[in-house]
């Protein structure tokens, strides 16, 4: 690798250096790199250090490196992602449209021609689209490459810097002053005042460097590491072991196997509770009335978690051992062995069983001749009753509705059960056909001697629980934490430097900060107060 030796101080700099690492003298042939112009201030952004991206541009690797290390490219990527993200909110994403509808149909019906285009472009699943992923991946790459490209030489430059700076370096700082006839005492005075303001002082042949907050220069790199950790954590969700997301419905009193746990865990729903705010509560009365209905205050499942003990034998119920018992509420998941169950949905008053009675059609008091109970989750085919009656279930509609004149079921869940029964009166071989459900019992032929009517029913609630196991969370949280540390480090502190350079008859004073120029000016004002040293002039001040 070629080296550049500083003509002024003799320090050997890497190729591509703009300002000598030790004394800051501009290296003539490289000034174009940072856009430094004669008569203008120096670009101090990366201390004029030699960045790979600004030095080499021959091989394909150089070109890729230079592409991703460019801030212009990085910002462009951010802006494209920003616009893409906004486009994704024009219409709801697919996950927010009602389930059980055909998305193609839904978008066209609801949003017209625009919705149709939106769907056909795949914008209804924008955030999981390959191109959105590629955008994020490119931002990630840009973060890594741009950070390495700058961090390494910047660190080197700040390590190599010497208090003794070249005149040209000082004169071309944004804050600069020159003072005549300054006594050594005055210089000492300024130095001590700066020290008092917690500047770290280093000296070399009467040249003084006062520096503080250098660590804030690392803030951007720390926060970029945080972002990378975060993105890696998010990426790990694609590993099945790291991330489990499933769903289970459990009826009151039932015990269901927890999905995705190799039949290891079981959950029992002891009770599902839904509470609402008291409509007479003075505090919330007005709001509840305006809402026009009850406002829920709590959804809760009292649950017991069991673990199967011993070897699982197919076809046999495993022995269960209680692991944990507790309430699952919204905002309060129940956690066990790395898993968490969240209260996520419910179904109130699902029918558990229905009891029907048979009576004579023309009996106005509807006195029961016989009755039978149907378990709605597991109905039997045939029921032998007292008095010689026999009932066969011909058809069962768990959630009954009329579909163009034919009875049908909307789901397999007994939310509105209805039956077509074949009733065999004692000794008869031909059945009478009866239709019975909630609030209806229809005699299909109109000539039945016996009628089937609902006598009684039992209901229970069902709870819907989300199961999660997410080992990526700690990584993602760590990424967030590192990001916050980095961003605070970089934003709430500033790297400030003041150089004092003895000249023939007085001193030169120059200062640089990476942000908050107002702050450093005030500190210099305090430091020079009462001495003959002139206040620095802001050579960049916008004058209008």
């Amino acid at each position, binding site marked *: 690798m070629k080296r550049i030796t500083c003509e002024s101080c003799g320090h050997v700099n890497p190729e591509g250096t703009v300002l000598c690492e030790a004394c800051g003298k501009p290296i003539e042939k490289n000034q174009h790199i940072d856009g430094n112009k004669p008569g203008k201030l120096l670009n101090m952004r990366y201390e004029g250090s030699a960045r790979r991206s600004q030095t080499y541009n021959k091989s394909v690797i150089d070109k890729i490196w230079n592409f991703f290390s460019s801030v212009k490219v990085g910002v462009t990527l*951010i802006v494209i992602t920003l616009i893409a993200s906004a486009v994704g909110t024009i219409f709801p994403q697919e996950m927010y449209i009602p389930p059980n509808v055909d998305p193609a149909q839904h978008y066209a019906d609801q949003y017209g021609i625009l919705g149709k285009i939106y769907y056909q472009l795949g914008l209804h699943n924008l955030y999981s689209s390959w191109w959105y992923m590629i955008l994020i991946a490119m931002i990630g790459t840009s973060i890594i490459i741009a950070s390495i490209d700058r961090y390494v030489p910047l660190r080197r430059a700040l390590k190599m810097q010497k208090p003794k700076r070249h005149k040209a370096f000082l004169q071309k700082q944004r804050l600069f002053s020159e003072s005549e006839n300054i006594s050594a005492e005055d210089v000492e005075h300024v130095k001590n005042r700066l020290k008092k303001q917690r500047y770290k002082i280093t000296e070399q042949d009467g040249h003084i460097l006062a520096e503080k907050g250098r660590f804030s220069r690392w803030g951007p790199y720390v926060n970029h590491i945080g972002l990378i950790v975060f993105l890696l954590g998010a990426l790990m969700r694609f590993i099945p072991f790291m991330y489990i997301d499933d769903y289970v419905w459990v009826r009151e009193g039932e015990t269901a196997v927890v999905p995705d746990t190799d039949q290891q865990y079981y959950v029992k729903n002891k009770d599902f509770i839904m509470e609402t705010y008291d409509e007479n509560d003075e505090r919330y009365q007005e709001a509840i009335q305006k809402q026009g209905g009850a406002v829920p205050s709590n959804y809760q499942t009292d649950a017991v978690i069991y673990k199967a003990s011993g070897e699982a034998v197919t076809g046999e119920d495993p022995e269960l051992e209680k692991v944990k018992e507790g309430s699952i509420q919204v*905002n309060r998941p129940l956690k066990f062995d790395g898993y968490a169950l969240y209260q996520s949905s419910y179904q109130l008053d699902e029918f558990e069983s229905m009891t029907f009675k048979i009576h004579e059609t023309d009996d106005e008091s509807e006195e029961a001749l016989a009755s039978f109970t149907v378990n709605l989750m597991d109905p039997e085919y045939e029921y032998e009753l007292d008095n010689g009656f026999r009932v066969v279930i011909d058809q069962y509609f768990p959630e009954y509705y009329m579909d163009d004149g034919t009875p049908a079921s909307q789901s397999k869940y007994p939310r509105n059960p209805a039956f077509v029964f074949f009733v065999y009166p004692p000794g008869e071989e031909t059945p009478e056909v009866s239709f019975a459900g909630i609030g209806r019992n229809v005699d299909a032929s109109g000539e039945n001697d016996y009628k089937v009517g609902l006598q009684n029913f039992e209901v229970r609630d069902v709870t819907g629980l989300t199961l999660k196991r997410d080992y990526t969370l700690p990584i993602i949280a760590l990424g967030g934490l590192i990001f916050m540390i980095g961003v605070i480090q970089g934003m709430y502190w500033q790297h400030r430097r003041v150089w004092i350079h003895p000249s023939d008859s007085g001193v030169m004073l120059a200062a640089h900060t990476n942000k908050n120029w107002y702050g450093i000016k005030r500190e210099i004002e305090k430091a020079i107060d009462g001495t003959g040293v002139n206040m620095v002039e802001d050579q960049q001040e916008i004058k209008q």
Partner: protein
Amino acid sequence: MGDLTQVSSTLLYIAFVLYLVATFVFGGTIRDKRTDKGNGTLGKVAITITIIGFLTQVGYFITRWIASQHAPVSNLFEFTTFFGMMLVFAFIIIYFIYRLNLLGLFTLPVALLIIAYASMFPREISPLIPSLKSHWLYIHVTTAATGEAILAVSFAAGLIYLIRQVDQTQRSKRTTWLEVVMYAVFSTLGFVIISSLFSAFDYSAEFQFPVEGEEMTVEYQLPAITGPNDGELLSEGVMQPWFEAPGWMHGENAARKFNTLIWSVLTGAVLYLLARLILRKRIAAAIQPLLKRANPDLVDEISYRAVAIGFPVFTLGALIFAMIWAQQAWDRFWGWDPKEVWALITWFFYAAFLHLRLSRGWHGEKSAWLAVGGFAIIMFNLVAVNLIIAGLHSYA
């Protein structure tokens, strides 16, 4: 308890008036030659009134918290009011760093408009639905609002910069955009004025309309320029809608909100045109001479500094705390809900702002335009996403 609610509203009202007074006193400092750096008496009086106003509003916040038994940041009125309060807080902090009176003259009116805007929404104390019942409600919402408020100070400073610096001697793209910003401010004012006016007369028009097969009714507090799609006017003796809202606008209140938007835009236009007629020049051009003594470099730095301070707070509140809560309440820390996406967009935007400023040297005017753009995104997230795009956060 009902009394406490009353006390709370009164305190908010007093705070509002104090901010208004403080704005005028800050206005007085422009002409006062001695108060350039905030050491004049008038400047001191102004900031003192501001602080008293802020403390009064803190009083509102605390009493309302006690009355409602949960942090009053749970609906649009409460959140927006809190945002206004934090904007004043952020201003006070920045004021004590830079002592720029002019900043008060620009920040306080923004806060006033925000609080006035907030009070147009239902103000009764509402119970918390289960997903909002968490400590993260106030941790997340207050931090996010604080971050946004600090970023809003950057907007105020950016606006000062632009009005001061944009050449008003001839018409250009820049002067036009600056007028667009001015017009947006007038529209907000228009919304407040028109809503207060019709609510003073108890205006009400009820419509019946179908939503997914069910008949719904909606009550308009403003005369209906646009009615619900396929809606039928129930009230008598009120204005018939001129046209129906398009069918793709969903939600039971979509048409009403759309109607309010039309009203605000129209009233804003009337106000703006009136102001133009009276001033006989661009609004920004009329303000420009008042800002002559402002140091553009300092204003630029304040604008940037506000972003530097606000960005970490915003990240923490609107993204990180939000994720922690979302993980607890909805079993996923990120769900691409529109409000979440727009918080991310805001974050992207300010990230781009910082990179452009730090690495590409976008100082001065470019930076000021970005500060204005960022605030526009924040307002879009606060107003439009809640009102137009429905999602988990549309609690009003």
